[in-house]
């Protein structure tokens, strides 16, 4: 597993890029930058550039957070990584089951095909977010217990 991992310094970059990318993407979608872009006469391709930058920063942030080494990347950390992957897979599976049961039993259908695709894309991100949260939470707890 170690050969897929990036150096530890990428974790800090991930911590910066993930919220920054999310902010750019959401703010761009909400039109926060519209007045500024209009004033600058840069509506096109400025708007698209912001959305693309935000989206890829978000993806890079996730990638860096997941695949960067810990300071001491030993077999115990890799054990926690594996457990966290299992947890994330189970979490995503439960999400899928609940989603499709909700649609089948309660007729909760997302509005249109694009909304359904958005839900599926969201569930893929859910896997990675579940992994990041679980892995870092366990590390935090282990660190705290060891310090005590």
């Amino acid at each position, binding site marked *: 597993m170690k050969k897929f991992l990036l150096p530890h310094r990428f974790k800090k970059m991930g911590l910066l890029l993930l919220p920054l990318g999310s902010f750019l993407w959401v703010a761009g979608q909400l039109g926060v930058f519209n007045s500024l872009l209009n004033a600058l006469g840069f509506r096109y391709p400025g708007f698209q550039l912001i959305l693309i930058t935000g989206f890829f920063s978000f993806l890079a942030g996730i990638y860096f957070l997941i695949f960067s080494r810990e300071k*001491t990347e*030993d*077999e115990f*950390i890799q054990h926690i990584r594996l457990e966290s992957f299992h947890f994330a897979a189970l979490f995503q599976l439960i999400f899928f089951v609940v989603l499709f049961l909700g649609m089948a039993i309660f007729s909760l259908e997302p509005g249109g095909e694009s909304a359904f695709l958005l839900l599926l894309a969201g569930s893929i991100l859910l896997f990675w977010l579940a992994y990041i949260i679980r892995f870092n939470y366990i590390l935090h707890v282990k*660190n705290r217990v*060891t310090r005590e």
Partner: protein
Amino acid sequence: MKNKVRNFRTEQGMTQQELADAIGVSRQTIFALESSRYVPSTILALKLARIFRKKVEDLFELEKKD
């Protein structure tokens, strides 16, 4: 699986951090090992045995449930 890592470590007057540095793992790993929350790989078990100059069987002991 039970282990006597804590006993041998304190016998030799080592801290958890010193033992961790000696075998190239984190202090959390030593803590998890000593509290039997983690079963190490063969490589790590052999490294521990070498540090303590003991046999692996002296360090680790199978329990009924194993």
